[in-house]
């Protein structure tokens, strides 16, 4: 009996995910503005249904959180088979694959920022600059020294991480809006510097960066009839998976707890014995690493980078992803990234009004949900702790 109900639960999860997966595919497929509007209305309808059938919705969430690993597994399989299914349904499947890869890259950067901003409360308005440092490092190493992506990608991350050390004194001495301004100025300075240093290409940037080539496998190879971007899709999927895994573990650990305390109440954190400056520096460096990795992948994939790719507007997008997603919530960041990166591509149909609507969307979302789409939930550390605490209670 018990086994049967568990089996039934699994089926339910699989069904829900498949339905969501195909809905998403259809959403990518549709080109007409009216159907986009219809899709938005449908999303609103689902939202209200979730309000009306609150209990049932909660039960569904409960189901997913109970079999979390299974649900993630199913989702992962769906994402793996995506490249094979999408050409059957979507007209511009390669383009959408590029957009999805870029969404993945943005999620990676946003997770890095989420660790700084969402978890620790450190504003960083130079994310695009750190992303750029990763991209330039990887690009230069690959171009000038011919190093393999196996080295350049982690080194890109490290370069971005250590560039964060340049800000060590400001991090020690400023916080809040002041730190925001320091990072903003830092971002501006880096972009302008890149524009003016001829060795790294100046405004022309770096061209012809070799593609990723791991153990003789060139990522420009096409997989059967699939486009070569599929290679990068899997690469980004894998690295993103690892990133999510790491940040989920950090959230459910002392690191996450310490960071949250620094974010919410710095004096109290000091009073608990936390060396705030050191913690902040570690968080800053650690978060930057992922931005650098993301940049390095982007450089190898597109093969061309130039300063305008890393301007303030990009940093703003990342900040918006983290804040709209709900700070310190990995799932929220992912949802917001899809909303803010994939969705505007659909709004291309309304070309002229796109940016205007984007601004309105930001404002309305934050007025309606001032804590973001998905605010952070309780830190559970581990299922065993949860069980232990429940036992302690009864």
């Amino acid at each position, binding site marked *: 009996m018990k086994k049967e109900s568990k089996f039934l639960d699994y089926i339910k999860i699989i069904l829900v995910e498949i339905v969501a997966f195909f809905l998403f595919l259809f959403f990518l497929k549709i080109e007409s503005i009216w159907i986009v509007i219809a899709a938005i209305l449908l999303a609103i309808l689902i939202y209200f249904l979730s309000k009306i059938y609150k209990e049932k919705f909660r039960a569904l969430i409960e189901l997913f959180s109970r079999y979390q690993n299974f649900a993630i597994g199913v989702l992962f399989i769906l994402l793996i088979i995506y490249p094979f299914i999408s050409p059957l349904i979507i007209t511009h499947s390669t383009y959408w694959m590029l957009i999805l890869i870029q969404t993945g890259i943005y999620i990676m950067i946003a997770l890095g920022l989420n660790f700084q*901003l969402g978890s620790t*409360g450190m*504003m960083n308005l130079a994310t695009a600059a750190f992303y750029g440092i990763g991209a330039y490092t990887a690009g230069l190493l690959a171009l000038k020294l011919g190093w393999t992506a196996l080295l350049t990608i982690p080194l890109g991350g490290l370069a971005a991480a250590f560039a964060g050390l340049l800000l060590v*004194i*400001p991090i020690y*001495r*400023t916080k*809040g*809006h*002041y730190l*925001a*301004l*320091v990072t*903003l*100025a*830092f971002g*501006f*300075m880096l972009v*302008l*510097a890149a524009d*003016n240093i001829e060795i790294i290409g100046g405004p022309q940037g770096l061209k012809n960066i070799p593609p990723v080539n791991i153990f003789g496998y060139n990522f420009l190879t096409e997989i059967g009839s699939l486009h070569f971007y599929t290679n990068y899709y899997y690469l980004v999927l894998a690295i993103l998976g690892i990133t999510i895994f790491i940040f989920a573990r950090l959230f459910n650990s002392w690191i996450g707890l310490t960071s949250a305390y620094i974010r919410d109440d710095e*004096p109290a954190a000091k*009073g608990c014995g936390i060396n705030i400056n050191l913690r902040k520096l570690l968080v800053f460096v650690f978060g930057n690493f992922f931005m650098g990795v993301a940049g390095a992948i982007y450089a190898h994939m597109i093969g061309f980078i130039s300063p305008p790719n890393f301007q303030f507007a990009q940093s*703003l997008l990342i*900040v*918006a992803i983290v*804040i*709209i997603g709900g*700070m310190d919530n990995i799932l929220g960041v992912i949802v917001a990234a899809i909303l803010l990166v994939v969705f505007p591509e659909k709004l291309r149909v309304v070309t*002229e*009004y796109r*940016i*205007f609507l*984007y*601004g*309105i*969307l*930001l*404002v309305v979302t*934050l*007025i309606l949900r*001032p*804590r*973001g789409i998905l605010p952070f939930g309780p830190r559970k550390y581990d299922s065993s702790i949860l069980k232990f605490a429940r036992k302690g209670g009864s």
Partner: protein
Amino acid sequence: MSSTSIFLQIIFNGAMLGIQYSLIAVGFSLFFGVLDVINFAHGDIFMLGAFVSLTLINVTGLLNTSGATYVFLLILVIILSMIIVGGLGVFFERIVVKPVSKGPTLMSLVATLGLGIAIREAVRLFYPRGSETKRFPELLVKLFPGKEAIEFKGIILRYDNLLILAVGIIVVILLALYINKTKMGLTIRAVAQDAEAASMMGVNKNLIIDVTFFIGSALAALAGFMNGLYYNSIIFDMGAMAGIVGFSAAVIGGLGNIYGAIVGGFLFAMVESLSAALIPRGSEFMTVIAFAVVILFLVFRPSGILGERAYERV
């Protein structure tokens, strides 16, 4: 042209920029004082100021008049645009800034950024031929028939620029008097320094916030008007950089401190002008240098020039 006169000319140019930066920075400082928000849409309010006054110039037919009517209409245009933009500022504060200011600080930052984008794009889309650079008429030249400028050892001090600078300085002084001498001004200061204590003393905080946003936005509108007169061209995205510079100036001066904002505005402008003039290839790097100075300031005087060293309330 001697090097001294070049230097003096640069100082004068810096002052022209400085007065505009200051008027924007004052808004940032005031809003931060009463609401604890950084209103990133403020740069776009500044832009609105320029566009509203351009519209008013066309509507009133200012350019076709002369003599006393002209002067009267000119002053009317300035005051009307300040009132309209001030009102818009209060409107945006009511529907966006205040509601989000209750949430986490950084939320309000993003919401105001979104608001700024929306305002900017709205002007581009809905103002007639809004994406083009607009010509802003040289209104002040008409006030000085005949000669345009005093020329002194190669330094050119244009009458219209001198007038802009003078008006700016008078407005700044009036603002200082208002803040220090009137009851409302003192209340604003009290709220800025300690909102909790002020509200305990029975201050109507909402009214104060409205008044503050009105003043801040009106000053930004004036800065926009000046910007139009100074450059004779305005464009829908002129607010983006102005906002960042205004914010920096406010921070250099110490957020929440009005005098600090004014000093910060002039300082930022001077650093820009001087570095463009004195450093080789400086013009490419002048904003970078100004930002570097901002960073140094924050590091060595984290609470700004005139900001007070705050003891953490434990």
